[in-house]
């Protein structure tokens, strides 16, 4: 069958002759054959907008063209997603930065705090903080390659720079003050308790990630209701542990930049969590044999 590919402004870019049973990824390969600039992960096809819709249905790679009711003469709208980069590539670089940058201020005070007299020894809390920070980001990098299963393969390349700026920037900002020669350590017992609890939160976060990773069997693409552990009470339990981890870290080091980092992260995670929760509630509406999504906190009981 012949399909018309339109640009977002309505011009016909191409006409493709495809098999109705072909998958969307085959369509994308064909389109790539015509337009060498747009490799498949850069392509996004949507059906024409139906009345009542805000935007047209996005075609998923694994589905067939016939699944969308496309017939001869059908129209598709094309969007160029821009240069793409792999999710795990971005995750690696955004986590590698903090792992490399934070310890610099700990190990090289002569260069990073010139004109300042560095004391002979770091305080215990400063040593534990650098250890915790490095453990956290090492854990994240390992998870990226062994635990996480990504819903999408790629993201726009601009995100690499944006995300790295955020993580690397904050790493430097927090580290500069926690490892500063004029750092004032808080009560040692409080710091130790906070860091100990933070470590437990990290383990909770790891377990949550493993649960999420096991939700889908290989090849499955549908949404699942997370269950077990804290997920029975909170939709985004992984974020809950993450936020607590950073709040406790901040409590351990008692530094404003650490709190700012925790709050910024929490706000972003809240946005994601609300969207995910809404999606799950909408998908699992209890109709047509689907289970009903249970009543749960979204991300941070008892607030939200």
């Amino acid at each position: 069958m012949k399909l018309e590919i339109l640009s977002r402004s309505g011009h016909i870019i191409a006409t493709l002759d495809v098999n109705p049973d072909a998958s969307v990824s085959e369509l994308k390969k064909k389109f790539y054959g015509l337009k060498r600039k747009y490799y498949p992960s850069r392509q996004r096809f949507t059906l024409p907008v139906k009345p009542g819709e805000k935007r047209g249905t996005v075609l998923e790679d694994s589905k067939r063209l016939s699944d969308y009711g496309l017939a001869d003469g059908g129209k598709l709208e094309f969007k160029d997603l821009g240069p793409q980069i792999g999710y795990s590539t971005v995750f690696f670089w955004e986590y590698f930065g903090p792992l490399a940058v934070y310890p610099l201020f700990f190990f090289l005070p002569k260069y990073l705090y010139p004109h300042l007299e560095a004391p002979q020894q770091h305080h215990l809390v400063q040593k534990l903080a650098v250890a915790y920070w490095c453990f956290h980001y090492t854990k994240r990098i390992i998870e990226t390659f062994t635990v996480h299963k990504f819903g999408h393969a790629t993201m726009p390349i601009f995100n690499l720079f944006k995300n790295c700026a955020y993580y690397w920037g904050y790493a430097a900002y927090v580290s500069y003050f926690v490892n500063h020669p004029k750092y004032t350590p808080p009560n040692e017992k409080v710091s130790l308790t906070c860091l100990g609890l933070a470590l437990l939160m990290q383990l909770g976060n790891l377990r949550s990630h493993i649960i999420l990773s096991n939700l889908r069997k290989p090849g499955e693409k549908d949404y699942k209701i997370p269950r077990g552990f804290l997920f029975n009470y909170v939709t985004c339990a992984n974020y809950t542990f993450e936020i607590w981890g950073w709040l406790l870290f901040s409590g351990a080091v008692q530094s404003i930049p650490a709190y700012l980092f925790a709050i910024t992260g929490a706000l972003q995670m809240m946005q994601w969590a609300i969207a995910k929760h809404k999606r799950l509630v909408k998908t699992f509406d209890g109709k047509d044999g689907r289970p009903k999504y249970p009543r749960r906190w979204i991300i941070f009981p008892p607030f939200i």
Partner: protein
Amino acid sequence: MRISQIYLVLYNALQACGWAAVLGAILYGVLQKGRPEQLYNSAGFLTKLVQGASLLETLHAAVGLVPSSPLMSLMQWMGRSNVFFLILEPNPQVRMSWWSVLMMGTWAAAEVIRYPQYMLSTALGERCPHWLTWLRYTMFIPLYPVGVVAEMGLMVAALPYLAASKPYSLELPNAYNWAFSYHRFIQIVLALYPFLWWQLYSALLRSRSKKLTQVGRGRGRRREEEGYPGEGGREGKETKEYGARHDVQPPPPPARGSRGQRNTTQRTVVADSSDGGCGVGGCGGCVRAFVLSRNCK
């Protein structure tokens, strides 16, 4: 009109009057060949009032009275207030600079158009005068660049005083394990200013092209629609005239087939066939008109 609309009209009216008074004071002072600090003395109090009050706009967005983003509104308010309340106000030497006059003058010149336009589009909806909409979406083109140069000039001029007096700053060691240098902060703000400003300016340019062409098309498009509800007054008569008169070429239907098919909400409001003089929804769209304009701030 609903009470919220009455409130918005009043708010915009008061702001318009306030800024008009500021502009008047500045122009008078300039004509009288006054020195910058004298001009600040005459216009400063009022500017403080209107600029301070404009924080309400964030509240309006937060409670949903207008659908702008409260965060955007707050950031813009903070930008201006930072320059005005934290740099200009407390530093007498900075007040002696012509940058401050230029800055307050361009602010006032822009606001004296923007607030009346909001007021009338909220109150009158489609019957908001086209020339006022045109002014609002055109005068920013020269005024905003001048304004941003003035703001930056003022900050640069203030840097030496900020370095010396170190206001709003925190030094190590302290219990918060944090240091903040306002002087350094302003240097960073200065570096970021052109980018932040460009985001705003280019967004306004984009909404300008949507808004102003849309107004022209609105009139032509009307004749294709029949029995459009909410149509009234001048607009209705004009449409009929196009139909009746054969010596006048009706404007060609706008070439926007694809836009017509798509139904994205944002575009619907702009490309909506129910445009009136302001390029906004019909009678019930007065608040939307206000809303649209706010979004384009």
